[in-house]
């Protein structure tokens, strides 16, 4: 036993280059595996810890329920911790502000308690708690607890705004959603709610948890909860489910584990190939030596052990070091990623420590497995050596070709012959490198395909600025907010458009008209007028029903529904004729029009072509949108000038493309960061593989190169030969990678897009 270990260790010492290469490979493998398993562990642990902090601890919510419903639910044992919340009023402002009531349980279930920065929650009718941003939008800067604020609010579209004085009792932190949607809400007391909203109009949102006695799994949760609601007489469509919280509450993180397992398997396969290559090639050099050992009586079993111990003694150096380094890298990167995420998200993740024996042990075990896999074949070869064969061992001894009818001469011939001789091994190397390249390309492609511009263009369709009408359809208390009345004195008119065109630096101005449609029952809807460019664009981007063509739609004056997904549900069918009235605010025209199709989603209910609009005989100034384009350098100045133009206009929204783009970029940053991290991992493995192939190829053929030089090969010719061989590998790798990688990356992106994680 001692002799065998001794031989193994001495062999390692003698083949220092090989030993170092193997240790580096094992080290890298272990680092990668440790990082992956620690990350998986951290993600699961963090999600469990943070699920409640991020998503709240409610299982479901029932919308639009009455006091009676709630007391009914309270009687049932399946529900526990039922909290009430209610919308109280809308606050008059330039932004979107509203007042809500949350009882204590609802506050706790939705993490609203954690939002309190100073003070307390409202108790009496005149108290209010909100974020600084809420007060700022309402016109109060630097609000402190104890300050009084005056807000105009109304409970619904049928009421008038009323001014009320509030005492600020608490300051809240803004939520993620508030910042993203630019909609802020304040909390008021139950007393205020009761005063503001009449009892018959009062509806609540009931947040609840499900008792432990109710059996459910991640998959069945939604169904179970909806059934419970129906039992209480609440229709299914009024139930919201807190899916993410339920997922983490009921699921041990199978998805994360399986994703990490797939990555780990890839790392193991690549690393095993790299380590195997190093051993295999080392073995070729040492085959004579093993033959001698066998000749003096070493058994096959003992030779296996020698090779095994050679590998494992190197693993004994590489694995612990790798696990240690891997852990620190994982911990550092993880904390960094969480910090990054916290800096862009309002929801703050709590950092968790990754130090746990389980993921690290798993990584160590996997590394040992990798080395063992890599050693399997070399062990078998060493054991099977016959001493006689070993004395004259040449790697290609089993070469299929005993005769090759060619007459290649010169360097080119040498290269061809050399590559042809080891065809199998060369193809294998090219493919392994190709596959790691494929992964590289797939991920790079994936990142490249995350198209923030595309996302931003969904919001601001053209140019740098979008100026659009901010209108309502059914505001009875303030009818001036309704579209038909805004159109009477449209803030977006020819005059304004001319002024915008006259702004120095504006390169392009594009407009879109909108108008009103009254259906047979007199319900108000909206319709947009698309030009050819936007029409064709819409067709390529969204789900479409019907055979749509701009010219045909213009000719027959057809109407296209703007919500293809609800087309049937709302009672429309292709080819229908509908009797409608169209209106530009001043005049209503009764007509019958064909319904010729539907598109994915636009901001209005219907769309028609410009030609069709011209036939309706409505005003030519029903502009709903202006898009303004300019050079980047002029953007800020023009932004100021446009805001100036619409300074006093209540019914105008101005959206800047650059801001939307920035928001989109921030939201995809985490995905990008994670993908880049993975890219680096694959790059390192691929590089190891390539470096190893090149180094070992030179080492094993040293003797041949010497002989070639002896018969007169110049250094230059030798270089040309090595470079050409390298080129074949490079070109082969690049070719195999691009042929497979680019389409695969595209498919993955399509898949991601279809499944909504991009």
């Amino acid at each position: 036993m001692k002799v065998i270990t001794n031989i193994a260790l001495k062999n390692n010492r003698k083949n220092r280059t090989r030993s170092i290469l193997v240790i580096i490979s094992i080290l890298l493998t272990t680092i990668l595996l440790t990082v992956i398993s620690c990350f998986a562990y951290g993600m699961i642990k963090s999600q469990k810890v943070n699920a409640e902090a991020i998503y709240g601890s409610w299982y479901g919510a029932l919308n639009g329920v009455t006091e009676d419903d709630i007391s009914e639910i309270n009687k049932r044992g399946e529900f526990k911790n039922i909290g009430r919340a209610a919308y109280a009023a809308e606050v008059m402002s330039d932004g979107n502000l509203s007042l809500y009531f949350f009882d204590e349980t609802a506050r706790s279930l939705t993490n609203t308690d954690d939002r309190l920065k100073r003070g307390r929650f409202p108790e009496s009718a005149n108290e209010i708690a909100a974020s600084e941003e809420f007060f700022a939008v309402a016109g109060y800067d630097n609000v402190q607890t104890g300050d009084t604020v005056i807000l105009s609010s109304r409970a619904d579209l049928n009421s008038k705004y009323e001014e009320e004085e509030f005492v600020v009792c608490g300051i809240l932190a803004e939520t993620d959603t508030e910042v993203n949607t630019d909609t802020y809400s304040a909390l008021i007391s139950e007393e205020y709610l009761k005063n503001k909203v009449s009892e018959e109009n009062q509806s609540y949102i009931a947040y609840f948890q499900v008792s432990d006695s109710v059996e459910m799994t991640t998959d069945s949760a939604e169904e179970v909860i909806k059934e419970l609601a129906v039992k209480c007489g609440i229709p299914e469509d009024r139930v919201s489910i807190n899916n993410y919280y339920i997922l983490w509450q009921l699921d041990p993180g199978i998805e994360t584990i399986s994703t990490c397992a797939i990555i780990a398997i890839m790392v193991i396969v690549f690393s095993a190939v790299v380590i195997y290559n190093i051993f295999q090639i080392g073995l070729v050099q040492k085959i004579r030596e093993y033959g001698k050992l066998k000749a003096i009586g070493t058994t096959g079993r003992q030779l296996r052990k020698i090779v095994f111990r050679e590998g494992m003694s190197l693993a004994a150096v590489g694995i612990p070091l790798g696990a240690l380094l891997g852990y620190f890298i994982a911990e550092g990167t993880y904390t960094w990623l969480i910090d990054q995420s916290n800096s862009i998200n309002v929801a703050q993740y709590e950092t968790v420590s990754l130090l746990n024996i389980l993921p690290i042990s798993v990584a160590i075990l996997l590394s040992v497995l990798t080395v063992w896999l890599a050693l399997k074949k070399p062990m078998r070869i060493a054991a099977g050596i016959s001493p006689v064969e070993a004395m004259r061992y040449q790697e290609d001894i089993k070469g299929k070709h005993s005769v090759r009818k060619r007459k290649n001469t010169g360097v080119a011939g040498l290269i061809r012959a050399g590559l042809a001789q080891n065809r199998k091994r060369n193809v294998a190397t090219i493919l392994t490198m190709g596959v790691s390249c494929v992964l590289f390309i797939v991920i790079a492609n994936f990142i490249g395909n995350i198209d923030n511009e595309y996302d931003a263009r969904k919001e601001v369709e053209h140019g740098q600025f979008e100026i659009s009408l901010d209108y309502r359809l059914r505001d009875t208390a303030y009818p001036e907010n309704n579209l038909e009345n805004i159109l009477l004195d449209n803030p977006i008119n020819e005059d304004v458009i001319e002024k915008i065109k006259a702004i120095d630096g504006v390169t392009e101005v594009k407009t879109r008209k909108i108008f009103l449609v009254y259906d047979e029952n007199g319900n108000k809807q909206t319709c947009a007028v698309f030009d050819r460019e936007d029409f064709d664009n819409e067709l390529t981007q969204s789900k479409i029903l019907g055979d749509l063509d701009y010219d045909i739609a213009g000719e027959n004056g057809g109407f296209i529904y703007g919500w293809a997904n609800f087309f049937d549900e709302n009672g429309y069918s292709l080819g229908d004729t509908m009797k409608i009235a169209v209106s530009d605010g001043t005049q209503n025209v009764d007509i019958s029009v064909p319904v010729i199709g539907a598109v994915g989603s636009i901001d209005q209910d219907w769309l028609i072509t410009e030609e069709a609009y011209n036939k309706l005989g409505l005003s030519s100034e029903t502009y709903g949108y202006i898009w303004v384009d300019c050079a980047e350098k002029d953007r800020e100045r023009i932004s100021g000038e446009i805001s100036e133009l619409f300074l006093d206009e209540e019914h105008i929204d101005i959206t800047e493309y650059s801001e939307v783009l920035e928001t989109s970029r921030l939201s995809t940053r985490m995905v990008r960061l994670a993908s880049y991290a993975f890219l680096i991992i694959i790059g390192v493995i691929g590089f190891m593989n390539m470096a190893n192939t090149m180094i070992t190829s030179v080492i094993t053929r040293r003797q041949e190169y010497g002989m070639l030089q002896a018969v007169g090969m110049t250094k230059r010719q030798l270089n040309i030969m090595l470079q050409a061989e390298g080129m074949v590998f490079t070109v082969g790798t690049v070719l195999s990678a691009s042929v497979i990688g680019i389409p695969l990356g595209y498919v993955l992106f399509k898949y991601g897009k279809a499944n909504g994680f991009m």
Partner: protein
Amino acid sequence: MDTILKTENLCKYYGSGQNEVKAVQNVNLQVENGEFVAIVGKSGSGKSTLLHMLGGLDNPTSGKVLVKNRDIFKLKEDELAIFRRRKIGFIFQAFNLVSSLNVWENIMLPIGLDGRKPDEEYVWDIIQTLDMQDRVYNMPNTLSGGQQQRTAIARALAAKPDIILADEPTGNLDSKISEEVMALLKMSAQKYGQTLVMITHDEDIAQMADRIIVIEDGRVVKQ
């Protein structure tokens, strides 16, 4: 006869101080055109080092090697490589064929490296002389030791070098095959008018040479 190969005070020392090994010391020898010279000596006597220097494979510590009165160590590295493939044919003990090339390609290697158009007729003649005509497309690993060495001899002859340097060409062969190979080597050297310098420690084989040079501890003791 003209002197084709000449050395002047050729020395090769390895290491320094106490560990200095004088592999070759002050060797002065001359080889005439068309001569067959055997260099004989015990293992470790410095004969291989000497041969390597004669062929420009190894640099001397001091002294000169003159081929046709030209000091080959004044050549640059790549010039020396070109000189080797044009003027010198090597035959090694361990046949040293390129395993990925067939017999024909191995024979043509020095010519191919030189970018010259091969004189196929001449090469075919050599192949037939060496009785390898049935094996021209075989890969080296399918040849016997004798066949491999005959291929190496053909390679050495094919480029029409001025000098053939053979380092124990029969060292790996049994005595019957050795004699056969030697006979072929001598015969072809004569036939193609080439100078042959051969190292051997086999007295019988040395006797086939025109002249025997004995080397002991790096010095020429008998010319």
